[in-house]
């Protein structure tokens, strides 16, 4: 891979701690534009912490991140975010379309109302995740998978160049999983860069061009076929035996051949 273009995301010596206990330390990473990257690692490895720190949602103890060569606050509107579904109250009094419109707020600026063009854009994004018929529903009247797709539609409405997604596949039905992966691939073909926190090893291998194996620091980062090895996975997951079988199965599931991403 030639990385001579400005990386979409560059992280240098990033350290994040909760109550002075380090959760992530010495993270170095450079992600070239146009890649679909899966972040995998055991529970408590700091996967969500990493993407939150990249977006400035958590205080950083050391190091820096740059987005397209600039500090985050100098690149407004270029970063999109799909938080974990459980992070909000789904009884909140808003409609599906209202939530997707929130994706437009960042570029609108303070005090300006979303207009007709924004509404149209939000409807188009809802259509992409097959939720347009539910646009006027209150958000609690949706299934878990539909709620996850609402968040994805909101991120699409941001029209960002770099996306962070926190476990978008957690607890969704098969139809939603297929819809999400289709959208992710479409985004990648449009040259967007996407980092996805993922928890399922077998699908991680199918879905992502590159994998970031994370356990408090970077265990490995590279093309999926190079990084998805028993040795590295065991290093990431700390040799927990129950996982070994899962890894072995995942490795066996799609043997060599289809390697080129």
């Amino acid at each position, binding site marked *: 891979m030639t990385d001579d273009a400005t990386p979409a995301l560059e992280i240098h010596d990033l350290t994040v701690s909760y109550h002075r206990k380090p959760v992530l330390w010495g993270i170095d990473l450079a992600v070239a534009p146009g890649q679909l990257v899966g972040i995998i690692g055991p529970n408590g490895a700091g996967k969500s912490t990493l993407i939150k720190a990249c977006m400035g949602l958590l205080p950083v103890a050391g190091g820096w991140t740059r987005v397209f060569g600039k500090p985050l606050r100098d690149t407004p509107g270029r970063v999109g975010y799909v938080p974990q579904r459980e992070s909000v109250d789904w009884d909140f009094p808003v409609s599906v379309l209202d939530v997707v419109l929130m994706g437009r707020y960042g570029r609108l600026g303070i005090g300006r109302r979303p207009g007709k063009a924004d509404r149209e854009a939000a409807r188009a994004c809802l259509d992409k995740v097959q939720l347009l018929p539910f646009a006027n529903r209150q958000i609690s009247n949706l299934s878990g998978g539909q709620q996850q797709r609402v968040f994805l539609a909101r991120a699409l409405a941001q029209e960002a160049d770099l996306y962070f997604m926190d476990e978008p596949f957690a607890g969704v039905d098969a139809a*939603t999983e297929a819809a999400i992966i289709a959208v992710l691939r479409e985004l990648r073909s449009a040259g967007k860069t996407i980092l996805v926190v993922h928890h399922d090893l077998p699908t991680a291998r199918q879905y992502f061009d590159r994998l970031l194996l994370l356990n408090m620091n970077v265990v490995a980062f590279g093309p999926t076929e190079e990084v998805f090895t028993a040795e590295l996975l065991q290093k990431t997951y700390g040799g927990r035996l129950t996982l070994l079988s899962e890894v072995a199965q995942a490795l066996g599931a799609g043997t060599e051949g289809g390697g080129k991403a």
Partner: protein
Amino acid sequence: MSRRRPLLWLLGLLALAAPLAAASVNDLATGGGDGFWAQAARFVSLTDPSVRYALAGALLLGLSCGLLGGFIVVRKMALVGDALSHAVLPGVAAGFLWAGTKDPVAIFIGATIAGLIGTATVTAITSTTRLKEDTALGLVLTSYFALGVCLLTMIQRLPNGNQSGIGTFLFGQAAALGADDIQLMGVVTLVAVGVIVAGYKELLVTSFDPGFARSAGLPTALIHHTLMFLLAAAVVIALQAVGVVLVSAMLITPAAAAYLLTDRLHRLLMLAAGFGVLSGVVGAFGSFVGRGLPTGPLMVLAASAVFAGAFLFGPKHGVVARWWRQRCERGRTRRENALKAMFHMWEADNFGPEGVALADFAQRRRCTLEEIGRVVRELARHDFVTVDREMVYFTPAGRLRAGEIVRNHRLWELYLTESANIAPDHVHDDAERIEHVLGEATVRALERRLNYAKTDPHGKIIPSPRELHRAEADGLERPASGGGGPGRADKEGDAS
């Protein structure tokens, strides 16, 4: 909410312990001994300046508290509002001491600063210790309130302290409002409305998903602090009329009532503002016409009555509406089960001559003749059956509906055994529930999926839809009431 209960107790104790200093509009009104109607007429005619001020004050505080309360409730910060309203009391005393008189602006500044220091204390406690927010709020609420009560008592012991009228801050006195108070209330309300209108979308997104808002580059901390400042200001301007002890109710109650009635934030805010204004005006009116009744508690009672109304009679989530829907549902299930039993008896008779004897019907349903009589009369009322000399006959509509229910039941049993691999003796109870809620589209899908099977897992014949619909085409429109198939929505949802 169980977290709220200790604080409610605390409030109750405070209310008992404090001298009942609640004052009323009536004390300051001209004091004529007229009756209710004369007082009411004087209130409505607005000739009395104290009435005009009290009314204007009630309107303004209802509007600002209702609007801001909407955000407090959706942000789950109701207790913060409660703590804030108690934390302002030392600031009231400090403002009074600073100005030397009951100067609204000095008191406003002192109280707002005290309120913001109070919320900052909560943040300091939660972020530096292991204590959680509810404990921190309880600590701040009580300690600031205690300090405020002590300071106010000291002020009242000062020479000219008794004339200061500062005691009204505990329970509120709408009639004590003067022109300068109203001006201040107007300014604060105008600023609050302006900020909410201009920053609606920022307030919405930071309330719903603060992490996302921040990632999109919105200044969430600034928005939060602006809201807290407006909240403190709204509490302070409401203090004189409602009192420290109860002012948080004017934030929480109208908004909570509105939350039960709508599921869009902008409508919630408008409803909350409307309820706030209504409660304020009703409280001011009640206090004026009722002798010796305090303003603040009356406003809060009015707001609570609105909430009780929404809780009981809300069209969607209200207790009565829910009870009514369940009752309708139960009635429909009861009728459909009776129709189904009749169909079974007819089927057991090899679809021979129609008509079921009442006694046999009662035997089959395991009930008395009187009970079966009631059920049959109900069926007849819905035009499902006719009764002729102790015999019950299906109307065509009744036969159709009975056939549909039996078909639904057997289709569902077949579906469970064939597609979900459930043993045939396990499927009956589930089908008993599902048969009443299957819509026509789902039934069609089931039939397709089961290749238009003719018999259920127990070997019974599934009544054919074609015959059912021939019966329908033969002459009868379906009964309007009784909830037949077409009115029922199919459960949509994504594929499982």
